[in-house]
């Protein structure tokens, strides 16, 4: 017999969702579809949120500031035990890549829905990840670690200016500096190191060549600890200060997507990767080359564009892997259909330096003919303590042009009142001929903002 029997691998009955916002609602949706009960951790600021109402139960884990609630490893682990949860889904951000939480879960007999702690440590340390990538045969940018008190100048000289100073302990733009003039190097290293120490508790920094015309292309992987497959690539080059705003799949106009995908799988294999993950690359448009950037060992904000073109539910796949199942798909089973583009609608004011705009949403209308992942509705509070993402609007079409047309039409029909949003900026961006052509680099958005000061 093939082992399909009652009692075996029936899976999780209750999952603690240790996050907030749209991703909490997203995870709850899949759990509900699978018949899994959900318990949501909430801070005092989120007790009345829409995800809190969608979940079967909620557990308060602390006051509004994230450090006292969503980032509190002990509180989250204790909530999982108190909830009688079989597993924790950490979403993205917060503790999603926290090895200490993964270890605390293991100790409490709760499954952490994500890679094992050793993988989290290897990918969380950007320097270690870089070494793994190089060992797996992936091209890495010229660079290296800056030892404490050592002069970075010689290393930078070898790399060639401009160089990028990066934090080893984490990403998201913190501890990151571009240095064009050798005279500024020492100061930049000191500032980046201090920033990294504050943000990640790890002052280590390293240098990498700064590619001026690079694109951010990433590959979605799935692994079960044994086999690793890819679910295609995404382009996330439309960013401002390393915050992505528009993502799409597949990445348009990439010369050698097959090599990129194969590289991601090779790294996944080396790591014995278990779960859903993303391997980020910098594609040097000028030189037709690509370089490994980092691994995100969690579900990504932009995962829906991959879901749209593959027809898969990535959260369901994460859960299946965490339940101890082998991958349900072979590489041949993964097929790609059409093109998908996502816009992140944030509560921020592009006309005022992208200042966050917390408050209360008084009206929220989204079109029904596209996918919208959101946690807000009329009456929703947008607390000042967390990131400003309100909704992701995702359109799919047979071609990039069709997806773009559908997304434009959808954004025209979105209404969000009560807080200032970047909705108008998105509408204008989607109308920009350069974006329409596809394949913009990571400097595109800043240039677009500068050129059209009236955009705000």
């Amino acid at each position, binding site marked *: *017999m*093939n082992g*399909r029997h009652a009692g*075996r*691998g*029936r899976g999780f009955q209750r999952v603690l969702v240790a996050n907030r916002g749209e991703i909490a609602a997203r995870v709850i949706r899949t759990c509900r579809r*699978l*018949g899994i009960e959900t318990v949501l951790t909430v801070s005092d600021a989120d007790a009345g949120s829409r995800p809190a109402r969608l979940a079967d139960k909620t557990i308060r884990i602390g006051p509004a500031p994230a450090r006292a609630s969503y980032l509190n490893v002990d509180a989250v682990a204790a909530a999982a035990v108190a909830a009688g949860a079989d597993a924790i889904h950490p979403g993205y951000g917060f503790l999603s890549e926290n090895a200490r939480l993964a270890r605390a879960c293991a100790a409490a007999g709760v499954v952490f829905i994500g890679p094992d702690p050793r993988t989290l440590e290897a990918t969380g340390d950007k320097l270690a990840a870089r070494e793994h990538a190089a060992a797996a045969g992936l091209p890495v940018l010229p660079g290296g670690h800056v030892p404490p008190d050592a002069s970075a100048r010689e290393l930078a000289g070898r790399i060639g200016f401009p160089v990028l100073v990066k934090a080893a302990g984490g990403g998201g733009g913190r501890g990151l500096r571009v240095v064009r003039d050798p005279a500024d190097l020492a100061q930049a290293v000191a500032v980046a190191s201090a920033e990294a120490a504050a943000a990640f508790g790890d002052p280590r920094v390293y240098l990498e060549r700064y590619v001026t015309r690079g694109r951010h292309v990433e590959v979605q992987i799935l692994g079960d600890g044994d086999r690793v497959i890819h679910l295609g690539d995404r382009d996330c080059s439309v960013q401002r200060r390393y915050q992505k705003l528009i993502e799409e799949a597949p990445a348009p106009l990439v010369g050698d997507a097959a090599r990129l995908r194969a590289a991601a799988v090779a790294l996944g294999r080396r790591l014995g990767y278990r779960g859903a993950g993303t391997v980020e690359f910098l594609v040097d448009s000028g030189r037709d080359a690509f370089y490994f950037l980092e691994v995100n060992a969690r579900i990504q904000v932009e995962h829906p564009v991959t879901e749209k073109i593959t027809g898969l539910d990535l959260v369901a796949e994460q859960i*299946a892997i965490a339940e101890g199942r082998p991958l*349900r798909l072979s590489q041949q089973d993964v097929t790609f259909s059409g093109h998908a583009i996502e816009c992140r609608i944030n509560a921020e004011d592009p006309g005022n330096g992208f200042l966050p705009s917390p408050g209360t949403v008084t009206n929220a209308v989204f079109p029904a003919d596209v996918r919208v992942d959101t946690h807000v509705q009329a009456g929703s509070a947008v607390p000042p303590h967390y990131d400003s993402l309100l909704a992701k609007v995702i359109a799919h079409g047979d071609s990039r042009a069709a997806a773009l047309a559908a997304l434009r039409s959808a954004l025209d029909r979105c209404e969000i009142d009560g807080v200032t949003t970047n909705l108008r900026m998105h509408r204008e961006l989607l109308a920009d001929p350069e974006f329409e052509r596809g394949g913009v680099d990571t400097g595109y958005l800043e240039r677009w903002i500068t050129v059209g000061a009236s955009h705000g």
Partner: protein
Amino acid sequence: MAKSSAGRLELVDVSLRDGNQSLWGATGLRTAHIAQIAPVMNRVGFRALDFSSSTAMGVSVRTHRENPWDLLRLTRKAMPDTLLQFIGTGFRFISWEKAHPEVMELVYRCLVNAGMDRFVVLDPTHDMDAVRETARIIKAAGGTSGTEVIAALTYTVSAAHDDAFYAGIAARVAACGDIDRAYIKDPAGILTPERARTLIPAVLGSLHGKPLELHAHASLGLSPLTCLAAAELGVRVLQVGCGALGNGTSLPDAEKLVANLRASGHSVDVDDRLLAAVARYFDGVAAAEGLPAGQPREFDAAFMRHQVAGGVMTTLRRQLAELGVEHRFDEVMEEITVVRAELGYPIMVTPFPQMVIGQALANVLSGGARYDQVPDQVIRYVLGSFGKPTMPVDPDVLDRILSRPRARELADEPPPLSVAELRHRFGDRVGDEELLLRFGMPGAEVDAMLAAGPAVTHYNPDAQPLLRLLRELGQRPAVDQLTVDKPGFRLELKGRGAR
């Protein structure tokens, strides 16, 4: 082991196939209904699902314009832990005509490739040579993937079908290496607890350790009790239906049976919360789609005579309604009893009920003498196309049928087309799955299915009334004001033109 031992029971859920067929004429459930609940059903802890049949696949194409092969595949994907069962006779696919053995081999290969991994072999005349040959084909199609084959012992009440008869069949099941287990199939729901107490030990005694399951329809209200007796007698797998798709002419209600089994000291390892979730989902589908929910049935002695199973009865009522002669239902039922006796008591299991009813309808509705009109199915049956009738056909009736010119035509019918001949007929560009659909049904039906595109795969019963309301409103340009008024709540919507 003591005879009346308590044990650990497993369940096979029949909601999606036999439940749908018995209560909703096989047409109630679409891909969306099934795809939505499949991941949850996977987690209940069912040993297997009675999932599909060639009839169900035909309905997918004909009624829903949905690709049945896609439905098999997407359900397998959503249900990695649960055996998915296909039930068939081994000699036909969708069409009522007998298929070439090569075609049946291709059918089973395609079914295995689409994810089916448990196969019922049901020969309506208990022709065990045919059953063993079909089991061999299925095992070959399954390769090393561990496909489960389960043979049906179809229960009926007649002079020929005593305990020794079923024990003899069970012994042949035990001796066949390609058959893994057996089940007692009671399509009419006429197995009483009393008879179970002699029948089940006789069958178990001859199975030599191969497991036995019980599939007893609840049409007469007997099977909830018969199932409890079976558990006590050592049967370890019982077949059930959930919520609206349990009871009535379907199988016993899962939730109630689990409670009753536990009350009798047995254990049933299912997730009660999810079992209830599945049952409420089917309740919701029934309410949203206007489909009847299975209800507990009362005992009806007349039923013991005609033995027409639930799904067939539902279909018959629908056919009579379509012909505008619902009032002649009782007359047709009486004729069914007579025809069945004249044809040598065929067990009322597919395809024989359709055959007996077809003849009964012809006899009642044609206006001429009985057997003035005889459907081809009946002629093929008396010619032995479906195996040897268990008891001889009434000699007068046999003469009347065989003396028809059509009988000679059918006797001289060319053998069914082989796979190579089918390929020649439908062209090389047609894939195996489509080839089999084109073999089984008119090409126009398959074309219409292909033209309809992929099926919808999500469904929310709670949203249906609202969606219906919105659709209706959308179709009426004149409606410019909508008011919903109830205690403590007033909703008023006005169109731009309204004041």
